C-alpha cells in the first residue's frame, strides 16, 4: 500500500493521565475514502485516540501525519481547519437554535456593513436546505429549531454540515447510540453517502453490527493498545466481538498468521 493512499497516519501514540496509561504505542491509519471502524470495550482508549486526532489532547509521544505532512494541533479548531471534523451525538448541535443557525454556527455567511457583520439569512437558509436535501435529509423548514428533529436527523444535519464545509475526515463517536433501528439505518446511509462524496470516516462504536455493515477496515483497541487490525473480508462481526470479549491478542495474532 502506497503512503499516498493514507489520509491520516498516527504513529506510536502514547498518552498518560496521571497514573493511567490511556494509550500505549498505538499505530493507527485511515485511507482516503475509507470507513474505518474503531472498536473496543469501555476504557479501551478509543475516545482518547480520537481526541488526540481532533486536537483536544496532545499526545505524550508519537507523530500524526495528515495528507502526508506531519501535523500537531493546539486546539480542535486547528484540526478542523485542516478538514478533521468530529461529530458528537449530544454536542454537535444546539437544540434551541434553528437548523440554519446551527448549520452555519461559527461559519456564518455575513455581509460587512461598517463594523457590523450582518447575517445573510436568506442565503444561509437556501444553502442549508439545499445541502441537506442533496444528501437526503428532509427538513420542513430551515428555521425550525433542531429540538424538533429526531436523533438520527440531528446526526444527519451534523454530517451534512461537515460535508458542506469541506471536511476530509469525519469522526463519528457512537453515532447510532440511543437511536431506533430505522434511525440508525439512516445514519449508516449517510456514512456511506459521505464516503461516496470522497470523505474518510472514523466510526467509533460498541455496536459491532452497525459498524460492520459500513466499515472497510477495523482497528480494535484494548486497554490502550492496538490488539488487531482487519480488512472487512478477513474477519466476521462475530469474530470481532469475540476478540473484544476475550481481549486475546496473542490468539488473534496466531490466527492471523495461521
Amino acid at each position, binding site marked *: 500500500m502506497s503512503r499516498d493512499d493514507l489520509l491520516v497516519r498516527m504513529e506510536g501514540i502514547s498518552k498518560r493521565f496521571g497514573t493511567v496509561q490511556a494509550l500505549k504505542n498505538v499505530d493507527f491509519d485511515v485511507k482516503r475514502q475509507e470507513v474505518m471502524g474503531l472498536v473496543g470495550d469501555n476504557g479501551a482508549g478509543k475516545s482518547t485516540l480520537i481526541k488526540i486526532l481532533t486536537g483536544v489532547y496532545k499526545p505524550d509521544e508519537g507523530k500524526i501525519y495528515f495528507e502526508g505532512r506531519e501535523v500537531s494541533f493546539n486546539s480542535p479548531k486547528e484540526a478542523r481547519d485542516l478538514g478533521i471534523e468530529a461529530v458528537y451525538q449530544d*454536542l454537535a448541535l444546539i*437544540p434551541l437554535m434553528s437548523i440554519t443557525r446551527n448549520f452555519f454556527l461559527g461559519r456564518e455567511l455575513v455581509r460587512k456593513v461598517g463594523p457590523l*457583520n450582518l447575517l445573510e439569512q436568506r442565503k444561509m437558509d437556501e444553502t442549508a436546505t439545499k445541502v441537506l436535501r442533496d444528501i437526503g435529509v428532509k427538513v420542513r423548514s430551515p428555521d425550525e429549531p433542531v429540538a424538533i428533529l429526531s436523533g438520527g436527523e440531528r446526526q444527519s444535519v451534523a454530517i451534512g454540515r461537515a460535508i458542506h464545509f469541506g471536511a476530509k475526515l469525519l469522526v463519528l463517536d457512537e453515532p447510532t447510540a440511543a437511536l431506533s433501528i430505522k434511525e440508525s439505518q439512516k445514519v449508516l446511509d449517510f456514512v456511506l453517502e459521505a464516503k461516496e462524496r470522497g470523505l474518510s470516516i472514523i466510526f467509533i462504536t460498541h455496536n459491532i453490527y452497525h459498524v460492520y455493515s459500513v466499515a472497510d477496515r477495523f482497528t480494535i483497541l484494548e486497554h490502550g493498545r492496538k490488539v488487531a487490525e482487519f480488512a472487512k473480508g478477513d474477519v466476521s462481526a462475530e469474530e470481532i466481538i469475540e476478540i473484544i470479549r476475550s481481549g486475546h491478542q496473542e490468539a488473534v495474532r496466531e490466527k492471523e498468521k495461521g
Partner: protein
Amino acid sequence: MDNKFLKTFTTKARKRPEFGVLVGFLIVFIGFSFAAERFLTFDSIAGIITVAAELGIVTAGITFLMIAGEFDLSVGSVLGASGMICAITATAGIPHIVGLLLALGAAAIIGLLNGVLVVHTGVPSFIITLGSQMLWRGVILAVTGGFPVRYWGDSALLFALNGRFAGQLRMSAFWFIAIVVLLTFALTRTRYGNWVFATGGGPQAAKALGIQINKVKVVNFVISAVLAGLAGCIQFARFRSIDPTRGQGLELEAIAAAVIGGTLMTGGYGSIIGAMLGALLVGMVRSGLVMAGAPSYWYQAFIGIVLIVASVVNIRLRRWALR
C-alpha cells in the same frame, strides 16, 4: 381563506418567545381598561411607559445576558451607583456630560469585573453578581453616609435623558425604544447575536465550533451593566435626586420581566421584544392597580402571580411549539 391565514399566523406566532407575554399583556390591558376608570388616558399610559422604560432598559440588558446563559443580580446596585455618580458630579459643578460618561464608565467597569470573575473562576454568576450587588450597594451607602443627594439645576442633557416632552410622556421612552431596536437587531441579524444564542444554548457545542464563549459572556456582562447604568442616569434626570437605596430590588423585577417576556433562565432562548413587553406589563400592573383603587401593597403580590402564571404558560407554549 381568512381562516387559513389565521391558522398559519397562529402557527407561526406561537413559536415565538414573545407570544405568551403578548397575550398576557393584552388581557391585563383590557382588564385594567374596564377596572380602572382613568386607565385609558394619555397621561396614564405615559406614566406607565415612564416606569416601564426605566425598568425595560435594565431588563433588555439582563435579557441579552440571560440568553448567553448568565445572570446579573448587581444591576440594581449598578443603577444606584451610576445615578449617584451623576448626582454627586452634578452637585460638584462638573459638566453633566462628564458625569454621564463617568457613570457609564463605572458601570462598564463593574460589568467587566463581574464577567471576568465569572468566566475565570467558574463560580456561578448568581453568586458573583450577588456579591457584586452587596459590595457596590455598600460602597454607595458608605460614600453618601446614607443620605440622598439632591441636585437643583437643569441642562439640555438632563432633558434629553428624561425630560417631559408631551404631557406626562418622557424622553426615556425613546431611549427604551432605541435600545430595544438595537439589541433586537444585534440578536437576530448579526453574527454576534448567533454567538450569544449559541453561548447560552450549548456552550460545549459552541466552543467546539470555535466560538469564544467567554468573550461573548464578558461583553454581555458589560452591556447589561452599562444599560443598568444608563437607567440610573435616566432616573437621576427624572428625580434630580438619588437616595442610596435606589435600584434596590430592581434586579429581581428585571429578571421577572425578562422571564415573563419568554426568556429562559437556562439560556439560549429569549427575546428583547419579549423583555420590552414584560417590562410594560410590570409597569402597567403597578399603575393599573393603584388606579383601580387597590392598596399599592398589592403590587408585589400581583407581580408574583403574573410571574408564576407567565412562566408556566411560557413552558407549555414552548413544548407546544417544539412538537
